[in-house]
């Protein structure tokens, strides 16, 4: 199963739950800022997303949209 995610960076509050729970290490912290003053997470293109949606399940801000092939 393949998938991809779209992170709504303006909603991210840098809580780190998605980074921790992603089984594929596909999500990593970033150094950029969003308007709320947080460092939103971003995807690590070198790792694959399998569309499991665990990131979105945990994300309190509903900042992740998940797509599956």
């Amino acid at each position, binding site marked *: 199963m393949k*998938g*991809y995610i779209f992170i709504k960076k*303006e*909603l991210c*509050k*840098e*809580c*780190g*739950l998605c980074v*921790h*729970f992603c089984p594929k290490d596909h999500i990593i912290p970033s150094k950029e800022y969003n308007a*709320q003053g*947080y460092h939103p997470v971003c995807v690590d293109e070198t790792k694959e997303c399998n*569309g499991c*949606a*665990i990131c*979105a*399940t*945990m994300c*309190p*801000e*509903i900042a*992740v*949209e*998940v*797509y*599956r*092939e």
Partner: protein
Amino acid sequence: MAKIVFKHPESLKENIFHYCPGCGHSIVHRLVAEVIDEMGIRGITIGVPPAGCAVLAYNYFDVDMIEALHGRGPAMATAIKRCLPDRLVFSYQGDGDLAAIGIAESFHAANRGENISVIFINNAVYGMTGGQMAPTTMLNQRSTTTPAGRKQAVDGYPVKVSEIFSQLDGATYVERCSVSSPAGVNKTKKAIRKAFQCQMAGLGFSLVEVLSLCPTNWKLSSVDSCKYIDEVMSKVFPPGVYKDQTGQSGKTAEARP
């Protein structure tokens, strides 16, 4: 062609949550909204927020809502449901709201078997007011009013809401879950759906207690907060189904006056 498998629920407004990073409220709000969407009941749902961090829940849930005074949500929900028995009425409460100032209202709504659903967010502390001891604060847990940790001699014991309410004959369905892991989140959503289905079928009082993270007042990262729930809170407040009479035919709802 990829299809979307996770998106923003319809029954939640687009507003950014004012809740802290990693707050369990945000997760549970989403789950409630997802369940409302899936059951197709947005138009007949009426919610009652607490006094607490979630006092502004009406900024998020796109359903009719009425603010209740601190602890009185179940009394309001009782009345609304009695007047509008075909609506889905839920009370959403925190530790102080349900188990301290509001203990009488929640207890008696359960005892009367009111056909409402109560979602109880247990984060073992008073969040909005800055981290004071809650009825659910655990022994030796530090809070702003128990700086040396909760001591049973002067502060008593943590209140085990699910255990207590499951003892009431009027309660039909009582489950405790947690949102500290993906599995926990999924179980919590199932429990919320079951509670709402219990209500729609007229089977009586349902309560879902959710062990929820409060990174700000616990002074832990969100990830460590999840560990705190799994390793510490779950020992004092074990997740599980405490009462489930939804399958029993003897527990049908009487025609409400």
